């Protein structure tokens, strides 16, 4: 026997169609779609122009060449070995990590495990302000303070270039410090107190609790913060353009001037590379390289975060 589908009348209103709701859902979906479309569009443009560039400059030469010397303006000549630029970006990333990681982690441990609530209430907002300083200001600070008042007096006028990788790396390190500190601190504070109590209860000191209980339990969040920091360092443009210079150079000397992938793009875009010239197209090749690096980093971070994620109920 078929059961009548009509609801018995128990005072509940019958199902109604709500056209307004559908419109809103549609609009929201469109917004979501927009970001996907923009991403796809950027990737397509990057890939298209980069392909034209690689038609002129073999991709192997591009990836293995050790000299980056695009000729100016309208002449289709020059050398396009991207290694010096990658090297510059990696130097900034590594150097900034050297500054930002220990300071950021120490800050996070202090805030999460040691600081009284009052101190944390002051330090955390200050960190957020530090994260909010425009990068161009940080770069300017590096050029006008870090290099002349810090690096040169310590390491010698003659050794330290006016534009140098160290200043850029320190500047970027200061920028990623709040990122690492803030995300790591959130991860550490999310570790349940029961774990701390367990360790304290068997005679662990605060240091042991922080370093051997809380940090391992928060490792996935800490890893995420570090990768985010590195991504930010690799993508950072203004501060390194100002502080680290624009001299593509395959070096390991932090006191020399270098050029990063991003700085090259900034410099060339504001220059006079004619549309369609090799130099113009090289922008897209460098952009695509940058994109691949950050994409790889994001993928790596997802994997690491999964791997280190520890369930703690």
């Amino acid at each position, binding site marked *: 026997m078929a059961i009548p589908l009509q609801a018995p009348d128990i005072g509940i209103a019958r199902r109604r169609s709500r056209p307004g709701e559908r419109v809103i859902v549609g609009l929201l979906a469109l917004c979501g779609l927009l970001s996907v479309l923009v991403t796809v569009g950027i990737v397509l443009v990057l890939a298209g122009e980069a392909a034209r560039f690689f038609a002129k400059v073999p991709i192997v030469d591009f990836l293995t060449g050790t000299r980056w010397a695009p000729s100016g303006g309208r002449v289709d000549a020059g050398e396009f070995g991207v290694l010096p630029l990658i090297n510059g970006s990696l130097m900034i990333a590594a150097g900034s990590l050297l500054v930002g990681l220990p300071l950021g982690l120490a800050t996070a441990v202090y805030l999460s495990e040691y600081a009284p609530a009052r101190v944390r209430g002051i330090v955390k907002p200050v960190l957020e302000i530090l994260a909010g300083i425009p990068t161009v200001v940080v770069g300017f600070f590096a050029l006008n303070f870090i290099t002349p008042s810090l690096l040169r007096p310590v390491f010698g006028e003659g050794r330290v270039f006016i534009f140098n990788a160290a200043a850029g790396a320190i500047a970027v390190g200061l920028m990623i410090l709040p990122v690492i500190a803030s995300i790591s601190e959130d991860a550490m504070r999310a570790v349940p107190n029961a774990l701390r*109590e367990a360790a304290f*209860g*068997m005679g*662990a000191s605060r240091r042991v609790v922080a370093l051997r209980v809380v940090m391992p*339990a928060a490792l996935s969040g800490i890893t995420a913060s570090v990768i985010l920091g590195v991504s930010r360092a690799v993508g950072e443009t203004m501060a390194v353009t100002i502080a680290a210079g624009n001299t593509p150079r395959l070096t390991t000397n932090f006191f020399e001037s270098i050029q990063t992938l991003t700085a090259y793009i900034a410099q060339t875009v504001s220059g006079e590379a004619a549309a369609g010239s090799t130099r113009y197209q090289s922008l897209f090749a460098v952009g695509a390289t940058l994109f691949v690096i950050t994409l790889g980093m994001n993928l790596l971070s997802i994997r690491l975060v999964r791997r280190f994620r520890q*369930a703690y109920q």
Partner: protein
Amino acid sequence: MSQNPLTLNHDVNDATRSAGPTRRPEVPTSPDIAVVPDTDPVFQISDLSFFYGAFRAIRDVSMDVRGNQITAVIGPSGCGKSTFIRCLNRMNELIPGTRVAGRIDYHGQDLYADDVDPIEVRRRIGMVFQKPNPFPKSIYDNVAFGPKVNGLKPASMDDLVEESLRRAALWDEVKDKVKKSAFSLSGGQQQRLCIARCIAVKPEVILMDEPCSALDPLATNRIEELMIELKQDYTIVIVTHNMQQAARVSDRTAFFTAEVSDEGRERTGVLVELDRTEKIFTAPGDRRTEDYITGRFG
């Protein structure tokens, strides 16, 4: 149901408890049938008060905790049982803004004296918590953690881990998978792992803060049996909501209650009485205890 919901078992070592709640416990006619020896006191607590900021959580608690016995702390919610037990290993002072008044002597030494290292206190006076809280590490590493961070250098860590797990009656269940995550264990096994972890640092006292409240009756039973075994070597203080549990395992029972202040806003825990468990449950000295254990209150 009878008027008394409690089941009192005099032979606490008897694992096959069958007395249901309907059978009234046999009350011994002579006060010294269940012999509770007067062992030396491990803790001598006098006029202990504890404050969270301005709020006084417990007031003027004075009692002894005797060695190689199980002392149960019972009482209604909010009577400061947990606060009290956490004073015994100085866990409370990890909470900012707290303060202790009064005195706790541990083997005659003032536990809160300036030159006493709280870390050493907590190593000697171990703790098992309400919810099993193993570290997100392997079973083995959970047990080895304490000895490692305390700089204990056993001849063989493997042996120490095995011995601790054996003492916690867990070894047979985990011996083939000690490298597996502690979270692969059931709740009751995790709690025994926490006991093993506590034992591994060779404490003298084990404080248990409602160790079975998150466990099912079977797992609870195992923990209770374990406690009775462990009191040969350790002094145990257990906070429990479960009066039957106190009656089953403990030698002495302290009954706490909450006194409501004049304004009716603050609830301060006070010790009503401490006596042999059997006495508390059959012939309590205070009306409030009797009301509580017979279910008229709480």
